[in-house]
């Protein structure tokens, strides 16, 4: 391949400034100790904020107040977001209580359950960060590598007690998380006041990552068929658990999924993971490690928007990746095994588990746990945490699973649910229960439009359209993000909205109900009125013309309303 035809995604320039910051940082230390102590600003400089991400946190500001405060000669209302790494979304009741307490003590009084099964706290002031992290640490919670150019929180279907196989798979997600964790002790020095460990000569500080870590974020998730709740094809490495004769035998491996893109740059696109084979259970960590190191060595470190694994693969071809992996492993993956997905949502309400145990899944709208005047969700969950003997699991759809509920405790929990009127999921429309939104405004620095604060009211209006069309209880996966980075995975929704500007969204149709297909843009840069006027007739037509059991995402393609997106590389082709 001559240099003139070299694919645009392959690095062709000097490392970006972020690479410099990483090298200079002495393994993620930077000047964080000093800048966190600087009392003249409640913010920190950009360079340190880049490093802060590796510690699971970053500086934001209340964008609602930005202009007003500038006029008042006040700096922006700076505050830190902290993301707590909980592999597979697992937390004990005690940990739930600690998060609840910290949210009130240092945060804005709410918790956000993220689309990657982590806790997020918003609104922490600079001088409370250290205490916050220390109190988390006392409860065995940390935020190491929850953001930054590293392997992020490992996702996994959150129903471990459904069967012993589920429990085993959960253990693998924990092991993946632990084995791919950065090894620097910077976090412990900066936040926990631990002594700096003297470097032993010749010993590699970061044997997997090296001094510059990865070119960008890296995501791993494990799905347990038939549920694709974690959206396995949206991950850099998606693992599909293969259970044969009620035993976990290994995982199908999908590589190069990712949701992010940039408006106006068609060289960026969402992509689904491609299956490259099957790995026996005990080799899975090795495979993940080598795939990550292939990205470490080949990802684009010059242009960050081209630095995701998907572009590394697409620019060189899947065959290149497979042979690179096989040569690094010294052995080859097996043939992909058969599997079947039927949904990427959650199963709400009570679900029986093994040994007379139960799981209960709450619908948490947009993952926001808080009390409002009429709906004391946070208080109710706190009361449940005080009596619950099992565990809490954050679902990949921003919901909450109460796991391992003892039969004897089921009534007590039901009483609390009734006492606080936590709407039984059946009372929420199917549309709402299958919806997700990212945080967006006012705290996310990337947001171009509202998401979490707006989607609920838009859903109410779409519910009206569904009723008119006679589709009252139709499950349509609806997702909204405030920017094209895609935290709520809108590009694989049947109905997707990606923020373009204040009150304006690109509208996408045709994603697959089980997370197996990307969507296609239907209308660009439209506001609510147009969204509703466009959607009404389509829904009516769907009601009339759909085949038996045909999902909305499949219908719009069959009906020719949008073309099918067969690969991320043709996502933008209309």
């Amino acid at each position, binding site marked *: 391949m001559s240099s003139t035809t070299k694919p645009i995604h392959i690095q062709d320039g000097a490392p970006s400034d972020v690479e410099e910051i990483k090298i200079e940082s002495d393994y993620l230390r930077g000047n964080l100790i000093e800048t966190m102590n600087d009392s003249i600003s409640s913010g920190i400089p950009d360079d340190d904020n880049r490093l802060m991400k590796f510690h699971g946190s970053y500086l934001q500001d209340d964008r609602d107040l930005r202009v007003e405060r500038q006029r*008042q000669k006040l700096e922006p209302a700076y505050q830190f977001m902290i993301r707590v790494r909980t592999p597979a979304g697992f937390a004990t009741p005690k940990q739930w209580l600690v998060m609840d307490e910290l949210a009130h003590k240092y945060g804005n009084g709410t918790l956000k359950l993220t689309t990657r099964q982590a806790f997020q706290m918003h609104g922490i002031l600079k001088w409370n960060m250290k205490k916050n992290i220390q109190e988390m640490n006392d409860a065995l919670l940390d935020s190491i590598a929850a953001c930054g150019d590293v392997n992020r929180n490992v996702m996994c279907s959150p129903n471990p007690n459904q069967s012993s196989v589920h429990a085993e798979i959960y253990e693998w997600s924990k092991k993946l998380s632990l084995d791919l964790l950065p090894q620097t002790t910077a976090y412990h020095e900066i936040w926990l006041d631990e002594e700096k460990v003297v470097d032993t000569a010749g010993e590699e500080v970061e044997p997997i990552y090296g001094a510059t870590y990865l070119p960008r974020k890296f995501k791993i998730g494990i799905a347990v068929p038939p549920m694709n709740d974690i959206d396995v094809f949206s991950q850099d490495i998606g693992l599909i658990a293969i259970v044969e004769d009620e035993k976990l035998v290994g995982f199908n491996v999908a590589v190069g999924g990712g949701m992010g893109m940039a408006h106006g740059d068609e060289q960026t696109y969402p992509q689904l993971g491609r299956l490259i084979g099957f790995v026996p259970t005990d080799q899975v960590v090795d495979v993940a490690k080598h795939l990550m190191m292939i990205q470490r060595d080949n990802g684009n470190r010059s242009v960050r928007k081209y630095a995701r694994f998907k572009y590394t693969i697409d620019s060189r071809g899947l065959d290149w990746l497979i042979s690179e992996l096989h040569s690094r492993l010294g052995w080859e993956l097996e043939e992909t095994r058969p599997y079947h997905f039927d949904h990427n949502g959650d199963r709400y309400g009570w679900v029986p588990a093994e040994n007379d145990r139960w799981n209960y899944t709450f619908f948490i709208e947009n993952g926001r746990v808080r009390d409002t005047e009429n709906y004391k969700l946070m208080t109710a969950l706190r009361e449940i945490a005080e009596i619950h003997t099992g565990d809490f699991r954050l679902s990949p759809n921003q919901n909450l699973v109460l796991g391992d509920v003892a039969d004897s405790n089921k009534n007590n929990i039901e009483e609390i649910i009734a006492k606080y009127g936590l709407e039984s999921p059946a009372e929420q429309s199917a549309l709402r229960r299958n919806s997700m939104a990212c945080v967006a405004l006012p705290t996310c620095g990337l947001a171009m439009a509202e998401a979490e604060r707006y989607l609920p009211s838009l859903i109410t209006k779409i519910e009206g359209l569904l009723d008119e069309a006679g589709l009252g209880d139709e499950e349509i996966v609806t997702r909204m993000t405030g920017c094209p980075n895609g935290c709520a995975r809108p590009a694989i929704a049947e109905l997707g909205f990606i923020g373009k500007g204040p009150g304006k969204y690109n509208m996408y149709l045709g994603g697959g109900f089980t997370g197996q297909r990307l969507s296609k843009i239907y209308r660009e840069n439209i506001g609510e009125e147009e969204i509703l006027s466009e959607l009404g007739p389509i829904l009516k037509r769907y009601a009339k013309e759909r085949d038996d059991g045909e999902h909305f995402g499949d219908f719009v393609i069959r009906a020719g309303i949008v073309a099918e997106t067969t690969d991320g590389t043709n996502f933008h082709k209309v």
Partner: protein
Amino acid sequence: MALQVSNSPFSEEQVELLNRLLPSITETQQSWLSGYLTAISSASVPSGGVAVLERPAIEVPTAVKEITVLYGSQTGNGQGIAEQAAAKLKEQSFDVTIQSMNDFKPNNLKKIENLLLVVSTHGEGDPPDTALPFFEFLHGKRAPKLDHLHYSVLALGDSSYEFFCKTGADFDQKLSDLGAVQLAPRVDCDLDYDEPAAQWLAAVEVSLEIQTGGQAAAASVEVETTSSTQYSRTNPFNAEVLENINLNGRGSNKETRHVEISLEGSGLTYEPGDSVGIFPTNNSDLIDEIIKVGDWNAEETVEINSQGERRALRIALLNHLEVTVLTRPLLEKLSNYSKSEELKRLLNKENTDELRAYVDGRDLLDALTDFGPVEASEQQLVGILRKLPARLYSIASSLEANPEEVHLTIGVVRYEAHGRDRQGVCSIQCAENLEPGDTLPIYIHKNYNFRLPANSGTPIIMIGPGTGIAPFRSFIEERSETGAEGKSWLFFGDQHYVTDFYYQTEWQNYVKDGALTRLDVAFSRDTDEKVYVQHRMKQASQELYQWIEEGAVIYVCGDEQNMAKDVHATLLEILQQEGGKSLEEAEAFITQLVQEKRYQRDVY
């Protein structure tokens, strides 16, 4: 002008000789003679040996009558009055020496014959900082006999405080005890001091005239003729408001206005440290309520001052009279029109404590309600009330940096007391009824006791929590604009970091570009333990002491009751801890700092 036995220390024979000689000598001779006499008196000092006059004095005293005017002034009002008096006396050919009490050498008391004191009272009847050493001297063992001295005291105060004009009264009593004779009786001035001060000076002049046998005869009068374009306290400038913003972010317990005002066309100038006086307008709802309760006629015209100016009652109450503060004199006058036994009982001297508790937080409307009905005419009501005083605000800008503008930092006062919401007269006007384009009657109030050091290289330490930050914004703007190379250190504090960090982005920039060397902040309600500026000072005590050793000037601005006292105590601690001084030595050191103008306070 002629010498007499009565106005000089000479005998009749000497007077005659001198009167024959003096009218005939030329100016040069006069000058030579005065130098010669001075030299003789120096030579007569036993230890002295200097008798040669190298350079005869050039400025020749043309008046035989000397008079010394001393002022003890915190806010500058006293100084202003003293300067006016001095100017007037100079025009009448008196040999006037005007000084701050701080700068006056007490031993000179023996040498002077006429002394005017202008002094204010603060806190619990305390003298202003700059009057303290002189006050203590007179009350101490070293105070000399003053039989030769003629004097008069003008006392400044605020009758809403218990110890109204106490310092003036103390000086008056002490001077009399030491044998000095009054030129004119002491006059105690309330906030509207212009008229009584003028009357006092007139009485002093008459007395001096008698002494000097008509020296001042023809002169006087002229002084008040100010040109119509010269704006002052008595002729305020209607200034346009350019900007009015709340400096407190959302969620704050406070509201603090940053008000930018245009001086265009006024010719007014100021220096960092000066204040702006604003003549406010009373809350119209409150005025309407007062008129209703008293059953007065809002449109009835009343005389509002001794010049005979007339206004409708409602306008007079809105713009010219104070209705938000109760004082003993007010209640005493009110009792003439009320049959209330309770009011009479309260005014009984035995019930002073109870009266003090009653007036605290109450206003005219309360008194009218509690002690009504009040059978006073509209004009009699006016007679009960004090003039609405101007409100002084430390200037928060540098004229160098903002030509033809002045900026103020105004803390808005709102509170609930005795079942009613109450408001600061001026601050609430700024908060609720003042938009760009509106005008405010203002004047510049000089504050000579709060000045940047003359040497721009001198380090400065500024302690200004809350709205006390205002003059320091002015200082740093000035130093930044003029490229001053001196180090600067600011201590600021308030309740909450996020919402109450006044001028935060400006300070950040000044720190970044070096105009401000160091900034230490303390926010009292962000953490479990309350942290104030004095705690930050203590934490940095070693460096603070070093700065003081290097000659730094220390400025304190803001709350007097708590902050300034705590800061003062902390300074004493630091001097002891870091300087190895005893408490007495530390106190003496601070006294010296005050005298050297290296410890300046603008507290309220």
